[in-house]
């Protein structure tokens, strides 16, 4: 099945709000998950006769469990504030990619089955019976949302389309329309331990090879330990860090930081993945199961600290949800969380982001860096959506913006921000987040990257920027693919710890 042909949008000087083109990406349909994948997840793989009842029942169930869904479906006044905020709308011109219209795909059904006005006067309030056509639209457009939350920043009621998308995908899974890409990955992470499906021995080989490379390169025996009981730190990082370019450069950076600071650390073969696609699917129990691997590894290895590598959605799940899901954090007073929390070192935040750790070590003078090693680089920083709008670093609100930039500036001399309306909380998604990083969605990935590419192009022209640092495995993989489509070199993207790796002094 070949994906439809499409043209890469042309870069302009500024981000343009396009005129509506109805149905512009209605043909986009991510591959559906096959039977074995759905079986493992406990979902059906095809629509049964009772799909409609199942869908409405599931919606009712979610409305009772998630206040976000209930309030967000009720509160929207169709003011239009969000209509020009989604990168997929800006890139595709399809009106159903406007956040409010994406929500309305579900809101029309909610109104029909769950509200008085929609039951009595459906036409008046835009309520509709659930049909197969609507279900197909859900599948198409809930896989054209990267759950980046940019719309939620600008909504006067904080309506977060990501919550609606998650609910939509959850309902789709329950009626037998799962997405191949995300559900296959959720199978691999639970069966093998990571999203890439790298078994333990292969992982060990890879790490040994990397250790040899580092020693050949620097003359210093930097180690990448795995499954070491009694290590101080458990590092949980996206599995792309083990063998994808440019991700692996950051992994080398983390290893050098631990080495230089003299901190004993370990990876875990059982929890060799920070990513948690349960977030994208919106199923609490799946997300919890995937997160429990980290708790289990921490208990088994007896570590005192848990540190997370460069991964956007993983950091959201770790920072915002791990304490809730698995008790990794503080403040629990139930036996389940106390069991783990009594083991953790209270002098450090749990979990801690690798940027927090490295930045603190540099500021304290524990590790030394030579920023002139990166003098060939003119660096900008892409705030990843889940880090920017769904998490924090440090003790102050906004630390997720200042700490990575502080860190970059301490290891590189040339830094320029992109335009204000495209960074910090207003950052544009790379275009591949939220379960869309698959070739069958290449059209929306390329078009959705348009706002970010426009902002990047401007700092390239103005400041000769030649490196866009980011702390997300999905961003890195996505940009590696889409940068060339917009005429940039794919090696322009890399991790913050790729810069750290070059600048750090190892002796």
């Amino acid at each position: 099945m070949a994906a439809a042909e499409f043209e890469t949008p042309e870069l302009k000087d500024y981000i343009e709000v396009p005129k509506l083109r109805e149905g512009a990406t209605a043909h986009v349909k991510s591959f559906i998950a096959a039977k074995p994948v759905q079986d493992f997840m406990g979902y059906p793989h095809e629509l049964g006769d009772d799909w409609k009842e199942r869908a409405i029942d599931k919606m009712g169930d979610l409305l009772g469990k998630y206040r976000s869904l209930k309030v967000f479906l009720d509160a929207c006044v169709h003011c239009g504030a969000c209509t020009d905020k989604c990168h997929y709308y800006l890139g595709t011109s399809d009106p159903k990619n406007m956040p409010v219209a994406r929500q309305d795909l579900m809101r029309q059904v909610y109104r029909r089955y769950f509200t008085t006005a929609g039951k009595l006067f459906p036409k008046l309030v835009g309520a509709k019976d659930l049909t197969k056509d609507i279900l197909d639209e859900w599948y198409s457009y809930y896989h054209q949302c990267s759950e980046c939350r940019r719309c939620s920043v600008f909504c006067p009621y904080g309506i977060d389309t990501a919550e609606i998308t998650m609910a939509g995908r959850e309902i789709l899974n329950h009626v037998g329309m799962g997405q191949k890409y995300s559900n296959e990955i959720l199978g691999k992470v639970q069966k093998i331990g990571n999203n890439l499906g790298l078994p333990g021995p292969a992982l060990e080989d890879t790490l040994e090879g990397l250790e040899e490379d580092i020693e050949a390169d620097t003359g210093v025996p930097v180690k990448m330990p795995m499954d070491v009981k009694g290590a101080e730190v458990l590092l949980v990082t996206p599995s792309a860090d083990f063998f994808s370019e440019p991700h692996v450069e950051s992994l080398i950076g983390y290893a050098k930081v631990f080495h230089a600071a003299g901190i004993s650390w370990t990876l875990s073969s059982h929890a060799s993945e920070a990513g948690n696609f349960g977030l994208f699917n919106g199923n609490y129990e799946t997300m919890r199961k995937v997160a429990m691997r980290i708790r289990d590894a921490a208990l088994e290895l007896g570590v005192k600290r848990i540190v997370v590598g460069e991964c956007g959605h993983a950091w959201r799940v770790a920072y915002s949800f791990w304490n809730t899901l698995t008790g990794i954090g503080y403040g629990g007073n139930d036996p389940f969380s106390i069991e783990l929390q009594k083991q953790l070192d209270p002098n450090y935040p749990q979990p801690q982001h690798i940027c927090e750790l490295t930045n603190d070590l540099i500021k304290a003078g524990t590790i030394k860096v030579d920023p002139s090693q990166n003098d060939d680089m003119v660096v900008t920083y892409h705030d990843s959506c889940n880090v920017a709008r769904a998490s924090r670093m440090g003790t102050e609100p906004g630390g997720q913006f200042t700490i990575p930039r502080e860190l970059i500036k301490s290891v590189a001399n040339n830094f320029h921000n992109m335009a204000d309306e495209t960074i910090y909380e207003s950052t544009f998604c790379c275009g591949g987040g939220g379960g869309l990083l698959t070739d069958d969605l290449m059209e929306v990935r390329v078009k959705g990257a348009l706002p970010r590419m426009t902002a990047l192009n401007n700092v390239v022209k103005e400041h000769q920027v030649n490196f866009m640092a980011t702390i997300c495995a999905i961003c890195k993989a996505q940009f590696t693919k889409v940068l060339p489509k917009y005429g940039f070199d794919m090696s322009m993207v890399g991790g913050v710890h790729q810069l750290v790796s070059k600048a750090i002094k190892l002796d």
Partner: protein
Amino acid sequence: MSTLTIIYAGMFYLATLLLVAGLVFKIYDYSRTPAPLKIPTTPAPTTQKGVVYRMAKEVVLFESLFKSNKWIWVFGWLFHFGLFLVLARHLRYFTEPVWSWVGFIQPFGKYASIMMVIGLAGLLARRFVVDRVRYISTPSDYLMLVLLIAIGVSGMLMTFVAHTDIVGLKAFFMGLMYFDVQPLPADPILLAHLALVALLMVIFPVSKLLHAPGIFFSPTRNQADNPREHRHVAAWAARLDQNN
């Protein structure tokens, strides 16, 4: 007592009942529905006090809307702040003696009606003019604005053009409050104004006007950003911990 008075008295009792019962139910429903995960849109305040401050800025100044779109913000804020003053002014018809601050704001409340109607007209114009907003507008979106404009304009007519029997009107509403129904002045503009207000009261708890209570329950705005320090678990999710 005239049929008209009986109809309007019954209408307002019923509208008040539906408004109060509907809102109480909705607020109860929102408050008992858990938010199982910490999902504040960050950067977010780290303390409960900070959350109150954030919410106050949203409710009073429409901070997020200001960041988003200056036109919607101007029209929306003119409408809401105007409505607030107009409603406050109307308290004089429901209190005896009239509270001194209500007396003080009377002139402001009168002219605030102009703000209100200008804001509403701007919001309505956007529904026709901006293609993106036109696309998302349902019939009820237009009708809601038309209803509010009609209420505003009929009120302004009585304030600025053709005064109604305001003493008789106050007697009618005070009578309703003390269950001692008094005759309602049969002024057509007044009757239209009151009927539209009663309609708005009935629509409120079953429409998008729920954004008013809704914002206070919006997890992206009302949660403190402290998930590493405090364990946040919903009752239905806590049961999962016990199976381990």
